[in-house]
């Protein structure tokens, strides 16, 4: 950042972005905000920072994008640096304020536009800039090579195949019902996540595949304010789905990936109909249907006894519409479910959204402060386990657990399902003797 401050500002570029975004919506929002202040109480940054009025959503958009338009793009780097702290450090674009504004002003869209302006001048958190470079080079945020990804999948297939007979991780299978896409950190750091998903699909006897490209459904470019790249990232997934002729794109337990693929992607790409070319579904919904419909049976003896709460990831619940499915699935898996308050479409962001987790150490302190609201919510439930179907919430709540001494275990649905599902006989691992017997018997 420091050397960035020395560089001149390309106001021509800024004006272009401002002009391209000078839509009826933004014009109207900027001009009718009545400065009533109702949005303040809706924002967890405001609540967690001793009700600092500078944390109110209206203050943030007024002093970033509002000011950019007021100055007609004639801004300097010092101003953009101030914006940087507000639009990345004090907003996760969770959209909660839109629900509390009498005019329904979509402040997160305006913050995202301000991010686009800053990004155009190279003002962007380093953690996000790094992922942008990776997306450009490899199509995934962690810069993982295709061979490494495929190798990881086959390694997981091999290893997990020992625990579950008949388990495969099909790659590029044409016409599958679900093309399962993941967060790049799964193959990179948590390959067992892929293994667990494979187990669930195997037991559910699902027709699924993983793509060899476009497998990373995350879209941090969306949060970095690079809309052209954000469009390309989501297009990688769409294109592969079309190429394979799959029926649905299935998103792993990740929130923003769902928002990107299902809702924002078509906007980035300027699709006239505003819809993704292939239907997009989220794991929470699919897993819920498996358990609800008995395709996956939960062992009653293995159901979680202790108190459990469910974290509504903003981009799965409010911005994804799946709060009921998440709860219903939790109830099917756990005996003592305790809801947070507020919740569902009015949940508070955990503080890890909007690119905050990958933004790294520079923002860690602020992230821990703003996460206080979520920490208190969790503590109030008395839960010992927090189910979190989102990678960014997952990291944040684990950090909050340490910071605030919550004493909770953070788990994904995958993990709980794998621990408690009944694996039918035919998928039970065959021990060596049996296999030999079968071979000796000259069976299949």
């Amino acid at each position, binding site marked *: 950042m420091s050397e960035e401050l020395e560089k001149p500002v390309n106001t021509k570029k800024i004006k272009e972005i401002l002009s391209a975004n000078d*839509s009826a919506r933004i014009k109207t929002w900027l001009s009718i905000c009545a400065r009533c202040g109702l949005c303040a109480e809706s924002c967890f940054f405001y609540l967690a920072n001793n009700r600092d009025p500078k944390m109110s959503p209206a203050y943030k958009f007024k002093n970033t994008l509002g000011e950019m338009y007021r100055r007609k793009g004639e801004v300097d780097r010092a101003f953009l640096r101030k914006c940087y702290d507000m639009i990345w450090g004090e907003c996760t674009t969770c959209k909660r304020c839109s629900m509390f504004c009498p005019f329904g002003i979509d402040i997160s869209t305006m913050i995202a536009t301000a991010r686009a302006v800053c990004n155009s001048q190279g003002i962007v958190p380093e953690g996000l800039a790094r992922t942008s470079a990776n997306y450009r080079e490899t199509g995934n945020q962690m810069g993982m090579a295709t061979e490494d990804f495929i190798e990881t999948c086959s390694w997981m297939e091999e290893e997990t195949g020992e625990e579950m007979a008949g388990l495969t991780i099909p790659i590029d299978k044409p016409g599958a019902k679900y093309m399962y896409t993941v967060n790049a950190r799964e193959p990179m750091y948590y390959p067992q996540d892929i293994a667990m998903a494979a187990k669930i699909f195997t037991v559910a006897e699902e027709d699924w595949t993983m793509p060899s490209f476009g497998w990373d459904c995350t879209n941090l470019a969306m949060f970095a304010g690079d809309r052209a790249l954000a469009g390309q990232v989501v297009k990688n997934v769409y294109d592969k789905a079309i190429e394979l002729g799959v029926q649905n794109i299935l998103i792993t337990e990740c929130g923003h990936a769902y928002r990107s693929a299902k809702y924002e992607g078509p906007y980035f790409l300027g699709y006239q109909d505003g819809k993704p070319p292939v239907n997009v579904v989220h794991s929470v919904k699919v897993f819920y249907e498996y358990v609800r419909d008995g395709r996956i049976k939960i062992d009653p003896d293995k159901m979680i006894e202790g108190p459990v709460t469910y974290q509504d990831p903003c981009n799965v619940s409010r911005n994804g519409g799946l709060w009921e499915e998440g709860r219903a699935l939790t109830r099917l898996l756990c005996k003592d479910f305790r809801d947070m308050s507020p919740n569902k479409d009015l949940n508070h962001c955990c503080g890890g959204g909007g690119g905050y987790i990958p933004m790294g150490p520079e923002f860690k302190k602020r992230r821990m402060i703003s996460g206080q609201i979520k920490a208190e919510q969790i503590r109030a439930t008395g839960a010992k386990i927090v189910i979190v179907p989102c990678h960014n919430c997952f990291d944040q709540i684990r950090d909050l657990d340490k910071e605030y001494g919550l004493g909770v275990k953070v788990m994904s649905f995958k993990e709980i399902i794998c621990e408690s599902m009944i694996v039918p006989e035919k998928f039970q691992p065959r021990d060596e003797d049996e296999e030999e017997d079968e071979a000796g018997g000259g069976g299949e």
Partner: protein
Amino acid sequence: MVELYNFLAGPALWVTFFIFFGGLVFRIAYLYGLSRERDRVFYNHMDARWAFQSIVRWLIPWGSVSMRNQPVFSLVFFVFHVCLLGIPLFLYAHNLLWEEAFGVSLPSISDGLADNLTIVFLACVVFLFVRRLVRPEVRILTTAWDYALLLLTAAPFVSGFLAYHQWGPYQLMLILHILTAEVLLVIIPFSKLGHIILFFFTRAFIGFEMGARRGARTW
């Protein structure tokens, strides 16, 4: 004075109505045109039911979570708007003038009621003004223009009230009453007060964008 009154109640009033209605129509038409060009994609997600709910829930008192979270402010806010629209429209004296000028009028409320409502309205104005001053999250957003608009909104009511009671110089009060009301009407289409119409559009949009697509209630 009489000439000034005749001017304000005559040609100036016509110009005011022209600017008020014309300005609103122009603003809507301009924004609509712009939206067809730049926000086109959102028309795909239009949904009358969600749009309607999103509007109505914010028109009824405590109809939204946000309003229920701040019940006192919401009540004042609601009463303020009801009085602001209701008193001028249903005032007996105004209806007499319309009957005279256009041959049509609305039902009217009694002068006593109008008088009491005006006091209630002005109390709401004081509340909103003080709220802007004392609540840090509101004060930080508030500009001089916001205070000015609030005072301007109150001005026709104050002058009308004084004129009705014949406190102070009657003719001057009457002239101020008409003048401030005309200034207010002229400003509405070109300021944040344009929300008298734009409210319905922004609420409809967020209603169906969050509701029809995601099932999230924006109220």
